[in-house]
């Protein structure tokens, strides 16, 4: 899967780097001074590179914990995100990462200890209060777990910080790492869903809805708190039927009483990211759809967006209490 690994020269003896190299003994190792030399050059095509991304092992020297965007929260007052990885194993047509980065290579920041130190510092700025830390903003939290060992390191660290709430956001079924340890009160494993038909068309390489639900069920039985993320909600001529069926499938599998949260948000992208996505996928039907640009964001035409969210909210109300539902309105 990984044929080339780029490694910052200062990290060649780092224990995580050594371990990953041992995992990919046939990969070609290429040293660079800083990961930006490989990741940031202008002359790169995300779409072409996505067919065969490489792995970049890097150090994140600063900006490790960031304020979460408005509307990202699932309750509580303080929301931050941290990205131990940039980019994702999957290839979702709507993903904003394609608009944000020029490269599709996976960047793994291996200085976990520095991330954790910054998380503790951030937590200390809100004494006695709950603080949310989201890990799946610039990547899928779990998809590359066999390589990153993210959970192996971070979960025991969060176990000692009851006021630090961690959200793992994923479309992956890589839950073995979670299942081998006790469930934690301050960790939510949140799975993103679109209807299977939409997923098959737009979420390339993503496990089927049913496989993800099976993984969720295993976690729920093991006592893990779960989240559902219907974000982005995608329009099609028969979106009502598609989402009705999706919700029925989801809530027939999971025990609602044990759910932590459900969030919902319509497809939306910053204008510049949208332009980049159209350039990368000019013939993608999603981007040719009933969209409008307002205030620097591209989203569904207002009446349609409202109708879709209202419909989904009403449908969800058949299964979950209102208190569990969190709308994601980034444009707000």
């Amino acid at each position, binding site marked *: 899967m990984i*044929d*080339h690994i*780029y490694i910052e020269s200062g990290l060649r003896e780092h224990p995580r780097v050594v371990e990953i190299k041992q995992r990919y003994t046939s990969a*070609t190792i*290429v*040293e*660079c*001074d800083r990961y930006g*030399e*490989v990741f940031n*050059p202008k*002359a*790169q*095509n995300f*779409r*072409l*590179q996505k*067919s*065969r991304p*490489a792995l970049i092992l890097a150090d994140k020297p600063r900006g490790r914990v960031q304020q979460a965007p408005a509307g990202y929260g699932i309750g509580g007052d303080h929301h931050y995100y941290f990205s131990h990885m940039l980019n994702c194993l999957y290839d979702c047509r709507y993903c904003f990462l394609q608009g944000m980065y020029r*490269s599709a*290579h996976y960047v793994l920041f291996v200085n976990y200890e520095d991330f954790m130190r910054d998380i503790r510092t951030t937590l200390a700025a809100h004494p006695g209060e709950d603080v949310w830390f989201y890990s799946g903003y610039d990547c899928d939290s779990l998809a590359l777990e066999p390589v990153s060992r993210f959970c192996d390191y971070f979960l025991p660290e969060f176990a000692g910080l009851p006021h630090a709430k961690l959200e793992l956001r994923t479309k992956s079924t890589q839950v073995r790492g979670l299942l081998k340890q006790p469930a934690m009160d301050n960790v939510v494993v949140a799975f993103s869903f679109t209807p299977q038909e939409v997923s098959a068309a737009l979420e390339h390489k993503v496990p089927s809805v049913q496989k993800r639900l099976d993984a969720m069920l295993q976690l729920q039985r093991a006592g893990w708190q779960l989240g559902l993320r219907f974000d982005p909600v995608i329009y099609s*001529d028969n*979106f*009502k039927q598609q989402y009705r069926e999706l919700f029925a499938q989801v809530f027939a599998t999971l025990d609602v009483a044990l759910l932590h949260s459900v969030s919902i948000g319509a497809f939306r992208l910053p204008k510049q990211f949208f332009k980049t996505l*159209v350039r*990368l*996928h*000019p*013939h*993608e*039907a999603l981007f*040719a*759809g*009933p969209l409008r640009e307002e205030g620097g964001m591209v989203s569904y035409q207002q*009446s*349609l967006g409202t*109708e*879709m969210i209202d*419909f989904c909210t009403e449908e969800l109300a058949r299964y979950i209490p209102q208190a569990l539902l969190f709308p994601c309105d980034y444009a707000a």
Partner: protein
Amino acid sequence: MSINLVVALMPEAKPLISHFDLAAVNTRSPLPVFQRDGIRLIVSGIGAAAAAAATGYLFAQQQQRDLAWLNVGVAGHGCLAIGEGRLIHKISEHNSGRNWFPPQTLKLGVASDALNSVSRIERRYAQPQFYDMEAAAYYATACRFSSGELVQCFKIVSDNPSHPVDAVNADTARTLIGAQMKSLDRVVTALSALSDTAIKAVTEPAALDACLSRWSFTVTQQNQLYRLLQRLEILEPAPANKAPDLGHCQSATAVLAALNRQVNQLFVQP
């Protein structure tokens, strides 16, 4: 197939010209250029300035973005055996200290290595990597016209610490490159296929030229027109997609308004 080959010397070019059956393009050209069926080869001469000039010259002949580019040549190496061929995954320019990392997206099983572009013939081979005099300038120039995935180098070891560069001659270069033609053919085929993918992604809407020739659009309006026609083609694919009925439109603004209406009518409101 569409690819540009940049080669420093004629003895290196000859096996490629022969293999791909290329013919000289124009005897008055300041640089020798050969081509057939979308494959173009230019003989640049030795050194960074020559490589950059040849790459720019070839682009100017075509004015086509996202073409595939391949620099082929013999080079010194710190440890590899004579005749070994490699794609290049890292190019360092000795004089400036700059590095480039051509993305390795071709699924060929061809090994890759690092390369140091130097301004004088390398005789010390201090590092276990290739040494040449053109790749950095070629790569930096070609990346102005194409994405890095489409700009690659393939080098073949002609000299190393046990076989000094002084023993390399025209016959050696020709023989070494000829011996790697199987790998080179695969690289050329895969790279040009990747380029085709990139170029096809920006196919113009069928009705664009007709609209541009009939009405006068500003640059902004041209962009809007392009995207509206593209959306129509996506949302209403052939055979349902008829040429938009715009005959009644008196101006570019009216055309855009009519197309907008036509696009919006395609959506079934819930």
